């Protein structure tokens, strides 16, 4: 108790120095919490938007298709999707079949002001697509194509803007069907989609699956079956269950999680988390240097006092505790201020967020977030920051204290 009292009183001895050091730590911690909140918020929202608009929770492909996925091979499609869909539905999960294929949009001079073409990936969806995906409320203009509508396509709003397409624009879709034959058909833009996933807005081209089936000669085959897993269930566990159930049905198919499908995104998140860890590391360096400097000065100024206490018979153990406590208290003070500032920053990030529309439109950050980047609360980050700031501050005092205790008592007493 005496040691704690002494440590607290010693803090008041150099108020300005203590405050400056604590504020430096506080700013670092607040910055860490703000950045961490931002990244966490972006990651949570990205995950949601990936599942809702891009990958679903799980997806069934043939193994051969997955191996050649960069070419979107129609020849490796699932030939008999119906039994698979029925099995998945029987297990209580929503599932829809889709066909993805590569194509070129050929743009004519009359409609777009110049001739040109654009390589795209087209997703053909059925009318039950809404049981897994959430495009229903994302229509910015026009309408969705009807079941069996042969020439209706829907574009992502940014893609449409980039090529100068509007609802009613006509273009030609050129592609190769199953088996490799060439196919081209006229299409008309019937709707524009603007969803919270910028990747979708930037690249989406959708058409009806029945029309695609005819144009591509799929004869009922589809490239993938997408599955919705409720949030309360663990995706990996459902993946295992479905893999087992489907293996007896069709040994050529595999069940992939959204993480398998969005590895590019996960790599970006991982590198950004590395950035967050780097910030944390830099904060700890700031704290260590600040505290170390403060304690070194304190040790130098109080060398005589320390010698006196040692002369009086104070054990090194108690001196260690006293000074480490003092340093840890500076860290605790800095952490407390930092957490208040960090909480305010997080609150702002959660409630208001940062408008990144000026850059998200043209720059792919990897995150699947809408124009406003919002934060999220993370109790564990607050605990890490507080404990880390305090413990590391205490540890930063080790070198100065060791140095002070190494000095012979008689030498230090001369400085009295």
């Amino acid at each position, binding site marked *: 108790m005496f040691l704690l009292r002494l440590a607290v*009183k*010693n803090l008041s001895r150099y108020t300005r120095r203590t405050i400056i050091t604590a504020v430096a730590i506080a700013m670092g911690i607040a910055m860490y919490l703000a950045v961490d909140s931002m990244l966490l918020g972006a990651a949570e929202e990205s995950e949601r938007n990936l599942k809702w608009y891009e990958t679903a929770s799980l997806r069934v492909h043939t193994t051969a298709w997955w191996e050649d996925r960069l070419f979107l091979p129609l020849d490796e499609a699932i030939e008999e999707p119906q039994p698979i869909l029925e099995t998945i539905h029987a297990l209580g999960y929503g599932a829809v079949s889709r066909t993805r294929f590569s194509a070129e949009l050929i743009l004519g001079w009359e409609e777009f002001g110049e001739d040109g073409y654009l390589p795209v990936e087209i997703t053909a969806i059925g009318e039950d697509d809404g049981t897994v995906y959430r495009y229903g409320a994302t229509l910015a203009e026009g309408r969705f194509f009807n079941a069996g509508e042969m020439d209706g396509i829907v574009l992502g709003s940014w893609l449409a803007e980039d090529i100068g397409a509007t609802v009613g624009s006509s273009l030609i879709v050129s592609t190769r069907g199953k088996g490799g034959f060439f196919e081209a058909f006229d299409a008309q833009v019937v709707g524009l989609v603007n969803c919270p996933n910028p990747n979708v807005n930037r690249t989406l081209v959708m058409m009806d699956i029945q029309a695609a089936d005819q144009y591509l000669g799929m004869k009922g085959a589809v490239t993938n079956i997408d599955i919705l897993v409720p949030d309360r269930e663990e995706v990996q566990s459902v993946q295992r269950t479905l893999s087992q159930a489907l293996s007896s049905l069709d040994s050529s198919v595999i069940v992939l999680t959204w993480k398998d499908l969005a590895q590019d995104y996960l790599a970006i998140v991982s590198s950004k988390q590395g950035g967050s860890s780097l910030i944390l590391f830099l904060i700890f360096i700031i704290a260590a240097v600040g505290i170390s400097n403060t304690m070194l000065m304190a040790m130098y100024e109080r060398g005589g006092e320390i010698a006196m206490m040692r002369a*009086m018979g104070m054990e090194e153990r108690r001196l260690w505790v006293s000074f480490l406590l003092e340093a840890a208290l500076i860290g605790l003070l800095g952490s407390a201020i930092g957490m208040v500032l960090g909480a305010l920053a997080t609150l702002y990030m959660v409630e208001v967020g940062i408008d990144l529309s000026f850059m998200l439109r043209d720059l792919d950050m990897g995150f699947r977030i809408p124009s406003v980047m919002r934060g999220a609360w993370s109790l564990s980050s607050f605990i890490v920051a507080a404990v880390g700031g305090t413990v590391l501050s205490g540890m930063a005092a080790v070198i100065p204290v060791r140095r002070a205790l190494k000095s012979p008592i008689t030498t230090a007493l001369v400085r009295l």
Partner: protein
Amino acid sequence: MVRLEDVSRIYQNGQSVVKALDRVSLSVSGGEFLSIAGPSGSGKTTMLNLIGCLDTFDEGELYINERPIGGMTNKERTAFRRRHLGFIFQSYNLIPVLTAYENVSFVLELLDMEEKRIKETTLHMLSEVGLAGLEGRRPAELSGGQQQRVAIARALVKEPSIVLADEPTANLDSKTGEEILTLMKTMNERRGTTFIFSTHDAMVMEYARRLVLLHDGRVVSDEQRGS
């Protein structure tokens, strides 16, 4: 109580070797009020440091309360100081952020004494050195003489067998210095504590009942005085 037998302390600084104490032998009995005097560099502080177990010697042996000090580890010397020795420093060396009470009581905290006894003992000690009512003041709010009284209380509160004082009045005016010496002597008589203090001030030497003169690390005179 304290016995030095042919004790030498040699300091080496590069090529030069200084014999701060040269085969000194001295015996101090319990309850003595002894002054170690001599010019600067004569070895007064070195001798006090050795008796205070703050420094180690190179030759001879030192006994305190019949215990040989030479073979003690650092930890043992710390424990010995905590229990048996009190110190008074020239510049008081009080902890500025603590009150007079806390500056004295912390010595008892080191002995893990119970809170109630610490309070009683500390207040009694402060009253004995004439600081009753000033317990709550910090060093900056006390005069030099009062600060040295706190230092004396701090040295005596744990009832050590020996109190060592290095030039205890050097920072005080002569009147206050005399008051401090009188107080030390009173404590010596009242409590029977052995006081060993260094000085080069003739007035301070007058107070000693035994005066040991050092010169170039050797005892050149050792006389009992009447006062």
